[in-house]
């Protein structure tokens, strides 16, 4: 299992600040360049599950999907968005197939 896979697993299990920091530090090293946010419930965030079920797809420079991570960070009972941990990446718009 590669380092980024381990970090992704940790993040999926426990999306806390510590795991997000470790993941964020390794983003560039793992060749990830682009992100795409996939909101649950077609972007109609009506319930907390719609936020916690939303994900971020991460791609390399050739638009190959590397991994997916949750969109949020959980601190105790508080839920925040985690997009600030993706600083340095670019949004992937359109079809790059």
């Amino acid at each position, binding site marked *: 299992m590669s380092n980024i896979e381990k970090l992704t697993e940790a993040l999926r299990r426990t999306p806390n600040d510590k795991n997000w920091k470790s993941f964020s530090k390794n983003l560039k090293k793992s060749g990830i360049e682009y992100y795409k946010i996939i909101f649950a419930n077609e972007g109609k*965030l*009506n319930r907390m599950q719609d*936020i916690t079920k939303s994900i971020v797809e991460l791609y390399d420079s050739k638009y190959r999907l590397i991994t997916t991570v949750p969109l949020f960070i959980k601190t105790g009972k*508080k839920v925040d*968005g985690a997009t600030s941990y993706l*600083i340095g990446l670019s949004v*992937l718009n359109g079809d*790059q197939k």
Partner: protein
Amino acid sequence: MIKQDLKSLEEKSIYIIREAKLKFNNVAALWSMGKDSTTMLALTRKAFLGKVPFPVIHIDNSIDFPETYKFRQDLAKKWHLNLIVARSEIKPDLVGSACCGKNKPETLKKVMKEHGFDALIVSIRRDEHGIRSKERYMSPRDKEFRWDFKNQPAELWDDYSSKLDTAGHVRVHPLLDWNEIDIWRYIKQENIPMNPLYFSRNGYRYRSLGCTHCTIPIKSGAKNVSEIIKELETTKTEERSGRSMDKENEYVMQRLREFGYM
């Protein structure tokens, strides 16, 4: 609308920003890292010899674009901004007008109260939306942030309404007369740093920036400021066509602004 040259727009905006600084005790500016509020900061720097002499507030709901966070980080450092990041709690029922109508104004109320600001510079333009065209350069809000748009004082001969009759604050709008293309022409003229999301990649770009869940890109090949200006000279699409809350219904923006939306 009478076409105005950039010089006269710049002069009027600088006059309004200086008036705000002079007339109020504790001024702050809202910064969303978009083209308008970044231009407002550039105008402020011009007005005060290269400095932004008041705090700059970002209402951060923690799901802004990563590029926006990076832009905030870089420009705040470069321009030595006194940046206040007001974290808006993430809640269900976030989408569109519920997010902008409840979460953001609540967070803004909190930060304004905490710091005791009596004036807030907001970079709205009249041409953005019908309801924004009803705004004044200086527009009072009550303590609940409510805007009584049916009862506003006239602003004759640059005599702006700066008196507070209530325990509220005054919204200052130095960019009211600008339109979208003026902003881009000024960005080009002054070489103002800009959020990279505005520029096309893979055939798409963002024309109006909000949070990730309520903003969608438009098809565009404009990769730099000159190409954006060229595109705007011929486009027939509305600027905020990529903003979901504007589509909810005709009066949603009126309701939002009445109850405190920026």
